[in-house]
């Protein structure tokens, strides 16, 4: 059944819950029909004993992990994979560290490319946090670095960040 395919694929790649209206519009089905498919999907998933399920209500849906996973993992110690950050993520982190509090737009401007997914990555890893909103129309989110960032880099405070070359010392700077 094609609708089930499209719904599950969409939920897999979506970044956060998907509004039900998105599916009813896309697939041209009514809400009742959609909720039926959701239930279908959940019964499929529980039959095959997967570690995630479809959490939904009358407004939105998302694939989330089942809550008893931690219980399964209690007896084992998950090995940690040491992983460095990719260059896009590192660049983004550097800009946020130096320019904070800073908006996504400003980060993208400095890097020269749209940086939304890099910010998401850093946020999910706890290196970057939302630190407020800019007081302009649209209230864009301001980002800053977390304590985790200080802990990982070994800086005691943000004041310890090294000055960057002569580029910021020139008298006629500032945009």
């Amino acid at each position, binding site marked *: 059944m094609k609708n089930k395919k499209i719904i599950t694929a969409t939920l897999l*790649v979506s970044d956060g819950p998907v509004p039900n209206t998105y599916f009813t519009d896309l697939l041209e089905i009514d809400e009742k029909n959609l909720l039926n498919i959701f239930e279908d999907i959940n019964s499929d998933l529980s039959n095959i004993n997967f570690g995630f399920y479809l959490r939904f209500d009358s407004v939105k849906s998302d694939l989330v992990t089942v809550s008893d996973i931690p219980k399964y*993992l209690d007896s084992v110690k998950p090995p940690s994979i040491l992983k460095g950050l990719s260059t896009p993520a590192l660049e983004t982190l*550097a800009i946020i*560290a130096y320019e904070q509090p800073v908006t996504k737009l400003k980060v993208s*401007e400095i890097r020269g*490319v749209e940086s939304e997914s*890099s910010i998401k990555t850093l946020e*999910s890893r706890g290196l970057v946090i939302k630190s407020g909103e800019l007081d302009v129309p649209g209230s864009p989110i301001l980002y800053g670095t977390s304590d985790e960032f200080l802990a990982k880099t070994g800086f005691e405070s943000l004041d310890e960040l090294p000055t*960057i070359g002569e580029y910021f010392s020139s008298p006629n700077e500032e945009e």
Partner: protein
Amino acid sequence: MELIELISKLKSLLIDFSDNNNKNTNTNLINLFNSLNLENVRKDIESFSEIVLLVASLFELKAKRLLPQNEDVDWIDEIQLIKDKDLAFARLLQFKAFSEVGIALASRIRENEMSIGAFKYYQTLNLYSKPDIEITLDKIKFNEVAEEVFVRYKSIKGFDHIEYNLPDVDEAINSLLTSIDERLNTTFEDLASEVETSEQAVAIFLALLEAIRWGFVKAEQVNNNELIKIEKNYEE
């Protein structure tokens, strides 16, 4: 003249180039181009790029040849010329191969991107006590990247190398990026219509070139009659 014919002529010219007759080469090149129906050439992009390469190699050799400009070319220079010619050929082959391999890799990536990976890792924050991935952050590398990314940014805004009293390209880049941001898609004509002096127009144009060169924006003109479309360049 047929394209294939032109290409083979250009190739033989390149081979014969160490022969001592610049004037002849000049005439030959001009004749060749005059005999060519450019409309047809443009239709065949593949051949067009080959021609550009061949001509570029020819002119490069020619420029080197013209440098001494004395009566006879010294035998060491002669050898250098032959080496240059071989190098030009080798480069031509290598270059063409890699540019096609690049496209092949891109089509592979495109195909792979038809399957999209799960994007739920923000959930790891709330998953189980120990997330599966421990992020390492190397202070030295962090500092390096920080320096690099800001230097890159600042060097776009710098233009120290231009000493003349030119319009402020700096400002023009900023305002260009802002207006592209606001409109997402715009045209060069649109941007240029807002300037008041010719200096500002020059600044906008330079800013646009720089912004394109650095990959901030893309500019495209489908054909001569269309406006030059400008849009922001997105990552990933």
